[in-house]
């Protein structure tokens, strides 16, 4: 994959976020009880927010994202989640799926940045990668406070 210039890079990012929205929608369709649905709806809304944000940046023609990566709590490396969601998934399953997903998106952007010959596109991907670390951080913190309270 190769992306050139501002628009293409952002289009790629927007498509990624849309894929994420679709992912949560798919999970939600599978969900069997209210608690699952409310969490998935919350995460879905977050991803929709990212779509809106990136679309807005594209329209304005400027990426306003901090290049500073968030602190990595290192959970993603350890979690065994293999994203095989089931109807009975609990909060831990959903959160580890989300962390893994953000981790994957982040590393994809890192790869994209490395692969980009275009300096502008590279800078955008680097910033997007940083943004994904922040998303991951958000879920990791949730995991720490809600799931792994005792460890």
């Amino acid at each position, binding site marked *: 994959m190769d992306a050139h210039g501002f628009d293409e890079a952002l289009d790629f990012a927007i498509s990624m976020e849309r894929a994420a929205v679709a992912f949560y929608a798919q999970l939600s369709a599978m969900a069997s009880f209210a608690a699952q649905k409310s*969490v998935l709806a919350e995460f879905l809304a977050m991803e929709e927010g990212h779509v809106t944000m990136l679309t807005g940046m594209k329209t304005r023609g400027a990426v306003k994202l901090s290049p500073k990566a968030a602190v990595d709590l290192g959970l993603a490396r*350890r*979690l*065994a989640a293999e994203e095989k969601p089931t109807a009975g998934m609990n*909060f*831990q399953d959903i959160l580890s799926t989300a962390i893994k997903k953000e981790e994957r998106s982040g590393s994809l952007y890192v790869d994209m940045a490395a692969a980009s010959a275009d300096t502008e596109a590279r800078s955008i991907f680097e910033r997007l990668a940083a943004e994904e670390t922040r998303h991951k951080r958000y879920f990791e913190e949730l995991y720490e406070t*809600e799931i792994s309270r*005792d*460890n």
Partner: protein
Amino acid sequence: MDIKDFIAPFAVWKRAFEKPFTVKKPIDDRPGAPRYRGFHINDADKCVGCGTCEAICMNKAIDMVPAPGHDAGPGDSGLRPRIDYGRCCWCALCVDICPSGSLGMSNEYVWIDSDPEVFRYTPGVEPKPWDGAELGYRRAEGYRLLDEHRVDMPELHHAEAVKSFLELVRGYSRQQAEKEADRCVSCGVCIASCPAHMDIPGYIKAVRDGELDTGLRLLYETNPFPEACGRICTHLCEEACSIGTGGDPVAIRWLKRYIADQVELSDYAKALPRAEAPTGRKVAVVGAGPGGLSAAYYLTLLGYKVTVFEKDGEAGGMLRYGIPEYRLPYPALDKDIGYIESLGVGIKRGVSIGKEITLAKLRADYDAVYLSTGLPTAYGLEVPGDKHPRVLDGVAVLAAATRGEELRLGERVAVIGGGNVAMDAARTALRHGAKVDILYRRREQDMPADAEEISEAKAEGARLVEKAIPLEVKDAAGAYAGKSAIFVWNDAVMVQKEPGKRPVPEPIPGAVREERYDSIIAAIGQGPDLSFVAESDGVPMKRFKPIVDADGKASTGTVAGAPVFAGGDLVNDRKDAISAIADGHRAAVGIDRLLGGKGA
């Protein structure tokens, strides 16, 4: 008369040429002695506003007043002593009795002002020239009016304790209880910190006065689980205790236990209030843990017919299935539950909502439903290999122990986690003769378990491995294959990654260790089982928690059927018995208000 009698008096003249005794500027030049009892000073940050100074002041010269910059909070009333020098007699009993030792006196004694109002001020809050004075009256070393030492609780020795499931803590005798109760200053700072806002000074006074029936009545006003809470409560009250600011906090929990222990169950009815006339309404409670049964108790007192649904074979919830009997013996718990049942609360044991009966059905058949299902699901280790058959979950191990099942933990047991479940699982394993390692991702001081549980687990022989990040579980090799598992972890260092946040364990590259265990008990955290709540039940959720209002009401009223209330571990973040009990009480009052009861 002698000639000397006429001459001697003239000897006074010799003094006329001596240096006079008086000084020229007495005010400027004569500081008070180092111990002088001058104007008060108060370290307002150390002061917790307990008002013991006000209580001992014989002249009523001290008033506790709100102090700017000192807000009420856990263990702080937000008040500070204001001293009226029109009444103060400078006896310094306030200094002698001050539990925190914040109050003192400067050696300053001159203060002239034409405005009489200024001689009433709050030391430490309103700045004065003598603030922070080094000299002045302080409590002498080794002298206190209050006893800073707690009466020792007779306990089984650790070497003895680990051999059986006998209760460790033996309980106070009457003499010990009364002596301990005497340490309390009745400041009441503890009440605010107790989730159930128990009348702690009230029942401690009952112990002091030997009026245990009164004590029991005060306990049951806010908490129908005194036997259980008297043993295993997380005792936030003791953390807030003003006596604890300068010594051991009052053993509030043991005194509660003392009251409940001393009154026979058959005498409870005499001491406790009777239920009001039946309202004819029915309430279903899901979960017979402390929260559910508290709601049931208070609803029954208000005249409701309450049915409690319990999925397990016995009532008590985590008190029974999560807490080992050496901490909370079953007869003690049975006494609490027995009294609640004796009031006519029906407990349907072995009935699981969502399986045998749906929430929708409860909402159709009852006038209100209270959900107090707690956190029954253990979260997994979530590392590769965590489905190994020797990876057990801590909650299940403790429940199996309660049911009297053979645990077959083996000789070498690892417990992963630093919470109370981890400590209980470790100590249960120790009592089954295992050699136990507790592996925790952070440091001992970061452990969420109660400090005493940690120290007792260690004293009983558990080995604590700190800063161990779980990496993987592998099957053991050779003859152990399938019977033991290898736990792999990475040693970590604590790194302060972001200022203001707690340090994060960072794996040390290459420092990977492994150990073979017969059982690996995961106790990293627990979650709710909310699979029985359908969207059609109209209970809004956020992150696997029902959203409740100030009354504990969870349903929004948009769907037909009885309103749903929720509380306990399911909802609150404290995740302890006393919070669940408080939630249950709150929901009972809320349900009564909603259904138009007397309290409405």
